[in-house]
């Protein structure tokens, strides 16, 4: 019996290796303009 189901997610430790290209959108430069969330932003790194 499986008690724990793990959802596929981006491994954040792994993302340190090729991360930080800076091509992604500025944090609040879209719909909200009054709060900061980055969960809804896409990674634009072509070498990840």
């Amino acid at each position, binding site marked *: *019996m*499986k*008690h*724990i*189901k*793990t*959802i*596929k*997610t*981006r*491994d*954040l*430790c792994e*993302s*340190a290796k*090729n*991360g*930080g290209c*800076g*091509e*992604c*959108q*500025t*944090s*609040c*430069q*879209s*719909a*909200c*303009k*009054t*709060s*900061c*969330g*980055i*969960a*809804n*932003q*896409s*990674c*634009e*790194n072509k070498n*990840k």
Partner: protein
Amino acid sequence: MIHQYKLNGYNIVLDVCSGSVHVVDDVGYDAIAAYESTDRDLLLSQLLDKYEDEGVTAEEIAECLGQIEGLKQSGKLFSPDTFEPMAPELKNRSSGVIKALCLHVSHACNLTCSYCFAGQGRYHGKSALMSFEVGRRALDFLIENSGSRRNLEVDFFGGEPLLNFEVVKQLVSYARSVEKQHNKNFRFTLTTNGVDIDDDVIEFANREMSNVVLSLDGRKEVHDRFRVDAAGRGSYDVIVPKFQKLVQARGGKQYYMRGTFTHHNPDFLEDIKAMLDLGFTELSMEPVVCAPDSPSTLTEEDKPIVYKQYEDLAKLMISRRKEGRPFTFYHYMIDLQGGPCIYKRISGCGSGTEYMAVTPQGDLYPCHQFVGEERFRLGNVRDGVTNTAARDEFAACNVYAREECRNCWARLYCAGGCAANAYHSTGSVSGVYAYGCDLFRKRLECAIMAEIDRIYSEDEDSDN
């Protein structure tokens, strides 16, 4: 650090530092909660006491504990935070690189919304429109300071930017004429109250704007409470048909209907539904940002109502998706597999460093919410950033700069929060706007739950 919660029938465990998301049964939920603080044999007997009557055996509990240990060993549970030394890295690496500007092409507005953080568009100064020369210099400043960054974002903002539409068109035309030679790609956004939208605006916006943000608060009576013209007349009846025409002509390109909710309508789900009834499907609804003594400010009493709206909104999203009538809520868009890398998650929002606002006179501020705060004026588009002390204050903002963030399970989803909200609520850009954080965490719980439900639905579809 882990965070556990139950919502809409799901038991959810987040492993904060690895970014792992687990869906667990009740035994697993309780086992994880006590795992790090309880001896294994004691935990096993405690769980057996609790779940034996439900037919759970000691072998099954032992198996569950084994799964937890396996996840811990593989770095997906109880993973440590080893990222702090990397927090300044992204900003150091891209030091001085600016990739986005908020162009305040108009410090004037044809509405007089009393809840406006920009003081009816004038940002506590005089009405003004940006000249083409200032705007062109701002675009050149962005190109000159963007290093190897290819995608450059420019938001036409205000006040109401359509009061200076001719300059907006000229600036877009100028940017298009120079972007290729500099190997840049401009992505424009227009944020408008809709009053001046006409066929010319629609054609232009749908051709040139990557994103259009349209201000609508939802129900007519809610919208018209604040969003009125100088004579006090509500703008709903004027703008809704224009928004509908623009969105219909947009042909699927990105847009957001963006509403604000206040103390007067904490039941904002009704406003989301009103937007849906009008045919809009890309939605954003933001808590008001205003002075603490304003009658519009959200209160502690509003908070449970707002939480309930967020939960019900997630459930509505799920049910409409299953009915084949999906819609998007900006804060519930979450990409668990393709989201931002760790550098982005810990390095703060970028205001004052990679993102700045430009006033009609060409003055630079850390972001649109700081415009008019003289202490934060960074410089201007002709001379660049000269107030390096203020810039450095923003450069130091990251997830680890605030004690409250260090201990917050949501820190890698908000990157340390909004410096403007922090400043306006605490007097310091490195403070914490606690109320906003509470709402953020609630939204995040709902967003992850809704995404799990979507993934499960897809799995079911592929199994059938």
